[in-house]
């Protein structure tokens, strides 16, 4: 250590402040006043953050990825979500976590000769999945194409006239649960993945809301919660799956899950039940006797944007 009197300036005098006069008292006062004003402004600017943070619990913030949760973790998590739903929406709900049925790979087919474009599937999806009412969100979008065209680039989803119009084709589009989903590849935090039974799911408790998956999906299948969903209590579907139709929080992604809270207990998805024309066929691709396999073997089927190599599990077919 040096024996010389110590100062904080380098010995070769590179400190350029060496020749500056001592700061005046007024300057110091002004600086302090400015600092105080700045602090107040910062407190004001930061107030919304404080309000938001107060709505989050420590368990919310520290919640781990779905695949890392033990059964006990899940019980606690579901209980917490049920409590939060009750507090916010005033409804008692039950969260389930149905596991994939062994030996099942889901497939879905839609008959373009039969679809009348009534959008009942879209409505049913909206209701079953507890979507935000204000935006009338749904995972299904129905397109109307003119005669002679099967080109979605010339289709319209916003038609508003009696259906079916003669010589028009109607094509609902939803998540295809691709074999090679681009959305799964791009998620930086692995919040979305393909399950053993083929369903591509989102862990709403893990998603950070970067919306990269929404940019990557070629089928416009993913939706983002731009706000917390607003649903009247009487409209809420209380039969919920954690990975499917529990009421999602603000700021996370969501998507069609083939109604896994229904299909994993053997029921038909809501969109299929709603179809009055019977244009939809759903079942187990691994079962050679299933209706979906019959359709694939006996009808002209195709998939959207096949050239992307996503290998969808949602097929379109014609009656003849």
């Amino acid at each position, binding site marked *: 250590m040096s024996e010389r009197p110590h100062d904080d300036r380098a010995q070769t005098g590179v400190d350029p402040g060496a020749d500056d006069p001592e700061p005046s008292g007024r300057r110091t006062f002004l600086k302090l006043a400015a600092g105080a004003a700045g602090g107040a402004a910062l407190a004001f600017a930061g107030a919304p953050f404080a309000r938001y943070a107060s709505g989050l619990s420590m368990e919310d913030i520290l919640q781990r990825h779905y695949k890392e949760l033990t059964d006990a973790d899940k019980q606690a998590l579901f209980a917490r979500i049920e409590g939060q739903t009750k507090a916010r929406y005033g409804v008692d709900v039950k969260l389930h976590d149905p596991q994939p*049925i062994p030996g*099942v790979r889901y497939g879905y*087919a839609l*008959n373009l000769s*039969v679809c*009348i*474009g*009534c*959008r*009942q599937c*879209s*409505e049913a999806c909206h209701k079953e999945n507890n979507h935000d009412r204000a*935006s*009338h969100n*749904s995972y299904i*979008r*129905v397109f109307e194409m003119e005669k002679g065209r099967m080109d979605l680039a010339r289709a*319209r*989803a*916003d*038609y*508003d*006239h*009696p*259906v*079916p*119009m*003669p010589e*028009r084709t109607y094509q609902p589009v939803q998540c295809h649960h691709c074999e090679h989903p681009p959305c799964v590849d791009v998620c930086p935090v692995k919040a979305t993945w393909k399950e053993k039974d083929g369903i591509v799911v989102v862990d709403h408790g893990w998603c950070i809301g970067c919306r990269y998956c929404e940019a990557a999906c070629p089928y416009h299948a993913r939706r983002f919660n*731009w706000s917390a969903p607003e649903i009247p209590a009487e409209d809420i579907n209380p039969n919920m799956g954690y990975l499917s139709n529990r009421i999602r929080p603000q700021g996370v992604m969501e998507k069609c899950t083939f109604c896994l809270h229904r*299909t994993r*207990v*053997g*029921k*038909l998805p809501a969109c*299929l*039940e*709603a*179809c*009055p*024309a*019977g244009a939809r*066929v*759903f*079942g*187990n691709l*691994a*079962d*050679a*006797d299933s*209706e979906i*396999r*019959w*359709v694939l*073997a*006996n*009808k002209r089927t195709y998939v959207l944007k096949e050239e992307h190599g996503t290998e969808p599990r949602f097929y379109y*077919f014609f*009656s*003849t």
Partner: protein
Amino acid sequence: MRRPVQTQREGLHAAEGLRGQGVGGPTGAGWTRLLLLTVWIGGLGAGCANSGGEAAAPGDIQASDAPRFATEVELPQRDLGFRTGKFDRDGHPVIVGCVTCHRLIGANKDNTLAEQLSRFHVGAKVTHGNLTCRSCHNPPRYDEFKLVTGRTVPYAEVMELCGQCHSRQRADYEHGAHGGMAGYWDLTRGPRQRNHCIHCHRPHDPRFRQVRPAPRPRYRGLEESTVHQEQWHGEGKLHAHGQAPAHGPKGGSHE
């Protein structure tokens, strides 16, 4: 193995219950409910020939031999008869059974088209291709319909009649590719309910009617939607009731 929904040779024992029931006069309340499919119990081996001819692929599972639940097909909530357009005190449509009049009045064999009728159901609208009344109706037994082979089927089995001409749709229906359903995709876990043909396709005017669709999607992001809204001026007419037929067996088409 998946057997067709309805076959002649199945024990349609429940159909017998329909005869003499509810077809002789104005109906009150009451459904016409029919269970058409029996429950298979046991012994569904994987070796059965399947009707579609799809080959087993690697990765396929063995067909389960668990007992399967039933698939129910309900006839629409309507008795066999002619709808007068009037409604009784309880709001139910007044339906006149064929035999009400034709027990006393013979059917005029010279009438082959609805336009030729001179009394009562003169305004019947029949737009079913080139069919005449007697293509399907079977006087003097008005609770039965006749098939092209000459065999008759009761009202409860009228899908057979539809299927003899519309066999492709019938086959599709049996394989779940035509006509709505509700319930379970996995019949080892629960039952299923199916629409009947005449839920959606009324026999005299079978064209699937136009409906008003559910509301179109809302596009968020800007105050006014800037989505191009092309107004197509189509030729379709609006259905009188303006509602899409509901799913499942309880919803029905209506006159």
